[in-house]
Every structure is written in C-alpha cells, then in structure tokens.
C-alpha cells in the first residue's frame, strides 16, 4: 500500500517513523535510561506502548521484574515529557530559541534551566544573595545565551547561560 504524499511536508517513511519512535522512547524514559542503562530492558521496554515500533523490535530482549496486569499504554501519550520537581513551580519562561526553559520553585532561591525536550535540568543558577526569586521576571537574550532576571528590591542579575 502506498504511503500518503504531502506536497509541502516531509514524506512519511518507515525510517522516519522509527526515528520518531526512538525519539519518543528516549525522551519519555530519559530518567530511567540516565539512572540505570540496564533498566532499558527491566523497566522502559516493559512500560513502552504495545503498538510502539521500538517495543516490537526489542521486546524479545526485555528482562522484566514486573508484569503490567492492567493499564498498559496502547500508544504514546501526547504528553511527551514530564518532570517532577522537589517543590512547587512558581515561574516558567521559555528561551527565545524554544530550547530551554527557566523555572523557579517555592522555597528555594535557586533558578533552574531545563532542556525543553527532556525537561531535565541542565543548569542551576544562584541569584544574588539576599533576594528572593518570588515575583521575579526572567528573559533570555535572543541568542538564548544570557538570562536576565528582575526581582524586588530592585536587583538585577544577568547570567551567561551557554559557553
């Protein structure tokens, strides 16, 4: 059966499907893969949706210590990544390039920069002493290398984000 052709879009292909599936697998189970590579086979593959190409290709290699009795995913959730922080998130701001997000959390003055694909923390910044991050406004520079914050009382810090 021929695949649909979209004149102004990339033509669908099984290779593209596999690449997309692999991307979903890696971003969806980033925590697991980074914590313990063997748990790709003990955990991630066990929880991968049953219709996933990755699961079909590698299920034979899985070595689960659990069985999903009920509630297994049939297809990927539209929510591509989730992260749980130690305390409530108060402020979130995108970088201009859409690749980073800065967040602040209740009860801490630290400012986290997270990757917008995996939601994993890539940097923690410490604001100047004596100021709270509450009611703070942030903005990235257009090249996303600088982050400027404003807070009360009238303190401004600018941090260089990228090398």
């Amino acid at each position, binding site marked *: 059966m021929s695949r649909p052709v979209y004149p102004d879009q990339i033509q669908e292909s099984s290779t593209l499907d596999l690449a997309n599936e692999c991307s979903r697998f890696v971003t969806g189970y980033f925590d697991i893969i980074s914590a313990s590579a063997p748990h790709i086979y003990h*955990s991630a593959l066990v929880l991968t949706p049953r219709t996933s190409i990755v699961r079909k290709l590698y299920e034979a290699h899985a070595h689960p210590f*659990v069985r999903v009795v009920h509630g297994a995913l049939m297809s990927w959730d539209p929510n591509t990544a989730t992260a749980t922080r130690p305390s409530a998130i108060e402020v979130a701001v995108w970088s201009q390039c859409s690749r980073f997000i800065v967040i602040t959390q209740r009860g801490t003055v630290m400012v986290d920069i997270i990757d917008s694909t995996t939601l994993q923390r890539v940097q923690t910044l410490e604001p100047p002493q004596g100021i709270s991050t509450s009611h703070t406004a942030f903005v990235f520079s257009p090249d996303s290398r600088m982050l400027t914050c404003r807070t009360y009382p009238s303190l401004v810090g*600018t941090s260089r984000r990228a090398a």
Partner: protein
Amino acid sequence: MVGVCYWYCDFAVISIHDVVSGVHMHSHSLGTPFAVGDLYPNDGSASDDGSVSESGSVSDSSLVSRKKLAPNNSPVSNKSPVSVSSNGQVSNDIWTHGKSLRFATLGLTTITIWEVGFTSETPPTEVETLSVPNDIRSAMPPHIDYPDLAERVQLLPASCRLVIAHQGKVLVWDARNSKSLLSQTDTRCSPRMSLTSDGRFFACSTTGYEIHLWKDSPTGYVLHGTLASSNGIPSLLLSPNGESIITFGERTIRLWHTKSFTAPPSGVLTQTLRHTGDFILDFSPDGTLATVVRREDSVVTVLDLESGAPQLTIDAGTDIYGLRVIQDSVVVIGDGKVIAWKLPAGDRIPNATVNVNDSVRASNFSSPGKGKVFTAAISSDLHHVALVTYDSPGPRPLYICSVSAGKYPGHRVTHGNTLWFDPDGRSVWCVGITGEAEVWTVPGHGPTPPHEASDVVGIEHPPEGYPWGSSRGYRATDDGWVLGPDGKRLLMLPPPWQSFALGRVWNGRFLALLHGALSEPVILELDS
C-alpha cells in the same frame, strides 16, 4: 555600548541599563503604580565573544553581572526619572524596534504604544493610541491588582493584540484593526492563558481540566485542539515558536507538542471532562481480583488479576464515594447508601454485568448535613461509615456514623481527603495530600464520638492492613524506584507514573497506581 541592553521597570519607572558595564543609561516614569515583569534585550547578536552557540550545550555558566539598581547605587543614578503622562497600566509585554524599545500601556478606554530609545535620553514618545471598544471595556476587570492583572489581561504589542479573561469570558482583540479575533463565553475558562510571540497560537486552560489551543486564521482564532489536563487547572506557556506548550502546577511540569492536540469534536466546549485520575481501588484479600471505580461514577469494574480483563461490571445506580472489598464482597458507599455485592468466584463468566437488584446488602443512611460528600469509607464490620463533606475550600467536616442507627454524633474538622478504617474498625485514618494521617477514634469505641485526632502519623510505613504500604516488604522510593523485599531494583517508574504514597495501593505482590497523571489505574505484579 557592549553587551545586552534591557529595560527595567519598577513602580512605573522604565530604566535602560547596560548590563555588562552596569551603567544606568536613563529612566522614565510613567506615572502608574504597576510594576511590569518582562525584560527584553535589543538585538540577538549581543555576546561577549561575538559568537552564538548552536550546540545548545550549557556549561561554564557564571553570573556576569549583579547590579543593584536603586538610584543611589546606580552609576548614573543621580538622574531623576523623566515623567511621562500615561493613563493606565503598563503591559507585561515589551518588544524591541530597531534601536529602541516599544511597550504599551493599557487604560480603561485606550491602549497606548510607546517608544523609548536605548541610548537617547529623550523621554518615551507616544507612537500610537488605540481606543478600546465597549465590549472589551465591559469585559475588563475593574479593580484587579497586580499580579492578577497580568494574569487576566495580556497585551501582545507586536501584533497589537489584547487578551482578556474575566468572569468566564475570553476575548482576543486586534487593537490596530479594531477587530475581534476571539470572543468565547465559557464559564469554565480560567484566566490562565498564553500567546505565542507572533500571535499564531493562543492557549487557555479551563476549570473542566482541559487546555484549549486556538490558531490564528484570516477570520480570527479557531479552535485547533483540546487536551485533557491531568493535574487540575495548570498554568501554561506556549513556546515562542508555537510548537510546544508546557503546563505546570504544583511540583510537576509537562511538555506537549501542539501537533498532538486533537481536533475538537462538535460541541466540545459544552462537554464536561472528569478529572482523569480520581480512582478508588481495592484488592480482594486472596489477591485474585481488584475492584475499581472512578470517584463519583456509578460503575464498579472487577478485574481479574491473572488476565487483567474485566470479570464483572457493577452498576450501583448511585454516585460512589468509597469502595472496599470485605471478605468475598465488594461494598460501595453511595449517596446515603451502602450496597454490597458478592464477588465472582469459581467458574466466572467474563465481563458479566449486575446492578443494584443483584446486591446482597443495601442500607440507607441520611445525609450528614450541608455540603457534598467528598470521600467515604466503611469499617470492615460494616458498622460505621466515615464521610468527609465539601462545602468550601479549606478544612472539611469529618462525620463518622453508625450505619444501623444512621446517627451522626457530631463532626470534627479535618485536613485530610482520603479515609481508611483500621482493620479492627476502632479508628479512622484521614490522610491529606502531604501524606500525613490524622487518626480518629470511632464512636462507640471511646467516650466522646468522634475523638479528637489522637495522633498524626506518616503513611509511608503503615501497620498491616492499610493500603499504602506493602506487607511483603516492597516499597517505592521518592526517585521512582520500586524495590523488592531484598532491596533489589525491580522497576523504575517514569515521572508520569510516580506519585506520593497516597496514590499507591499495595496488596501482596500487586501494586496499583491511581494518581492523577494516569488515565486509568495501572496494576503491576512484582517479582517475589
């Protein structure tokens, strides 16, 4: 001037500073008491080495500038701000225009666009004044303080778009062309909203636990898709390129691709979605069955734990607030009712359906008072029912009544929202989201019913017979691992599957996950 310029505004003063040198260039007062939040540089090429990173890697970060901008400490701070007549509130959005900044002030009848140079000390000049039409004016909240103002009224200066969310109305207005782009009246609309910087997408959350994504079109914004939110009414933020949206509430942040939004069926805005993950589940004592119901739903599903398939469907004919398996029966607490059915045994007929006529026990009890029942539990001897009712936010009344007498000997105030009778029926644990349980003595087992909470305990390691801990030594860690009795790492739960102890039910080798990020309960059988 080297480095990045930014504007700074506090108490209606917009100041231009050179970030790298810390030099205060000039300030201008706008005569409005509202502070504004965003900071925008003047161009995209500014960096100390003149290069722009393409790798996206982050390393060697350091604070390159830390300046106190109070007038007495600013390098050129002895200049008094130049006052500019301005009627209204400064918008949260500001954008650059060549060598100058543009920003907007929002008044009750006008939107004014201003321009101020980076290096020129000339006060901001008025670029354009646009009138606010009557329907927009009437929708605007009359007296809202910052930051509520910033949440309910947003201005996108680049395309001169004004967004107002107030009292169930969402209005997007093209101020330059005096054109309404979206006028949505929906009492479920919350003021949490976001626009892409080019105005191509607009998103707002609703009290119906949905996110609506609107896309710009020649005729205005059209509903592009909806998404069920699993964590209440989250704050949301569209990425500048419009391809992604993050939602965040409490400790969780989630990422969605706008492509994944589903096209809404007809009439979607009148639909009511339930919270996706508010389930009640209990296992049969022999570990062969699990019973599950969505809170306030009337249908109980009995699952076979060997196959995972539904074994029995029970239509209780009443909204269910609590459920418990006692010996060979499943007992539900409905609206003034306690009803029990025998669980299937022996040769089972897959997915049979029964209703209240097939029950083996049905008792009525009167409503405890004002307020809607929020959650309920029953003691294992079926003598007592505990109810928490909901009338308004904050602490809620806890009632413990005798099912046979139907009496409520008073109530106490609790912060908990999940109930569980201990195995001998002498006390009730009332657990809050923090994972701490208030332990209440049941009437008839103490001198004054119900007793004041005798203790507040954590539920991570409850006594045997409580659902939040494994009697076989399994446990779940804060970082997502499920450990076996010997400490072996059996499974790492991805973030959407992780939860507090309250979202987990243990029984023998089985672990059920019930929390809000899951669209249905997940039941796992663990290696022994």
